[in-house]
């Protein structure tokens, strides 16, 4: 596949790895105090595991996995609201597949579907529009979820519905902004990071300037990266070069897709339809404070929260409400590996997940389970 296969060349990877090893030696850190680089995006986490890049690293370089999985930081009460909406007899509830098996307080959307709720997995919000057009006697709700990569698609779908006066379509908005979640990490005194691999597809929409604060205010290097193995290795090399040279800059490795100032058409659609959701008081300290979006008044006819009077407080609940004994919150903040969680692989598996991190296509526990669970299991006889 064009623009994919070229970025998987093993010879180039070998060279990049030898450079990474050489520069990490120049930085002079040991395995006890490794150079910690966070890949923010869950898509990057999965690429790293899928191609075994973590196993190719010198011992002095460690990947820390970041919070870039929108399903994983969706408060549990919002899943409960989804189920309530889906169980409304007039509603056809449409969603991406990632969310289906995420446990709510009592059940998941998957379980609600098994019990008879009309829940349909779609590939695109445009598919939800098609369902709305062909079911005029039903209310079609689409679960709007994701960072800035996905936000333009639901904004444009709302604009299309508005132009067509498609009155039976609405979006349950749970969109969030990515830069705010990085700021939350940087403010956490328990997390020590040396640099970041920045998200590629969020940046294709917002550009690279929203990360300026990371370099300027927090003095950390960040390199926006593509998703193929060579993209990730080259980006890591660029981060390490910055650390070695004591530079802190925002650099862009994924120039073939990410323009410096982002995509003005996508940004215009986001700004036209969405606004920042007013903040509620946080209930506990050390929770990730994230900027969440809501639908502007001009488009309230397409806002499921207005239509079905949902006023659950998205910030009052823990970002990752975790069941007893789980380590979800530490994992999502990059403070623990999934394998350090006592539930991982025992009472929490993709078949019977205790939380979203194990079932989302970008969840870090899912990545560990899928690609590397056999590596770290220690057998004692």
């Amino acid at each position, binding site marked *: 596949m064009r623009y*994919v296969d*070229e970025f998987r060349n093993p010879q180039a990877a070998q060279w990049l*790895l030898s450079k990474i090893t050489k520069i990490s030696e120049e930085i002079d850190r040991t395995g006890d105090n490794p150079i910690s680089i966070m890949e923010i995006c869950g*898509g990057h986490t999965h690429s790293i595991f899928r191609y075994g890049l973590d196993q190719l690293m010198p011992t002095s370089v460690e990947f820390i996995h970041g919070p870039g999985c929108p399903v994983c930081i969706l408060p549990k009460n919002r899943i409960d609201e989804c189920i309530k909406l889906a169980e409304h007899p007039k509603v056809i509830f449409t969603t991406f597949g990632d969310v289906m098996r995420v446990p709510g307080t009592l059940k998941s959307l998957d379980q609600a579907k098994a019990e008879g709720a009309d829940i349909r997995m779609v590939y695109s919000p445009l598919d939800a529009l098609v369902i709305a057009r062909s079911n005029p006697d039903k209310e079609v709700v689409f679960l709007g979820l994701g960072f800035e990569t996905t936000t333009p698609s639901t904004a444009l779908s709302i604009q299309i519905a508005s132009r067509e006066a498609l009155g039976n379509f609405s979006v349950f908005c749970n969109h969030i902004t990515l830069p705010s979640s990085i700021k939350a990490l940087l403010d956490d005194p328990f997390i020590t990071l040396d640099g970041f691999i920045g998200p590629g597809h969020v940046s294709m929409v917002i550009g690279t300037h929203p990360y300026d604060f990371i370099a300027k205010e927090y003095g950390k290097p960040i390199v926006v990266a593509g998703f193929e193995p060579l993209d990730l290795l080259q980006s890591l090399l660029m981060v390490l070069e910055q650390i070695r040279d004591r530079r802190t800059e925002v650099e862009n490795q994924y120039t073939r897709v990410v323009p410096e100032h982002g995509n003005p*058409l996508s940004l215009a*659609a986001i700004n036209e339809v969405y606004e920042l959701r007013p903040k509620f008081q946080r209930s506990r300290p050390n929770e990730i404070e994230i900027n969440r979006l809501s639908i502007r008044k001009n488009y309230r006819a397409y806002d499921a929260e207005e239509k079905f009077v949902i006023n659950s407080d998205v910030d009052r609940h823990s970002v990752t409400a975790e069941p007893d004994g789980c380590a979800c919150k530490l994992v999502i903040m990059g403070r623990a590996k999934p394998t350090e969680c006592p539930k991982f692989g025992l009472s929490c598996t993709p078949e019977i997940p205790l939380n979203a991190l194990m079932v989302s296509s*970008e969840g870090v526990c899912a990545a560990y389970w899928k690609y590397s669970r056999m590596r770290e299991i220690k057998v004692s006889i």
Partner: protein
Amino acid sequence: MCLGIPGKIIAINDANLLMATVDISGVTREVNISCVASKPLEKLIGSYALIHVGFAMALIDEHEANRTLEILKNFGMASEMLQGTQNVNLADKHQEDLGEHHEIR
């Protein structure tokens, strides 16, 4: 959620609704091109775009792609001259395990 995949724009289906057909590794699909419609639509045909949830989210800049590849190609050539470096197996673990092809989303 943030996964995207390159597809080639092969036809404009509806200039008013901004819908086009893209070819993704031989599979065709209709996508919305609102986010890449800043130049005359006919000029988009033949371009590669990053496809995400049914929308062409960005045009792939061929010049920039080639520039990155050129650097990487030079890396590859240099690595052939290196001796004693570890052998790299970038086999897709997912395909190895499940025999699946690229995830399209």
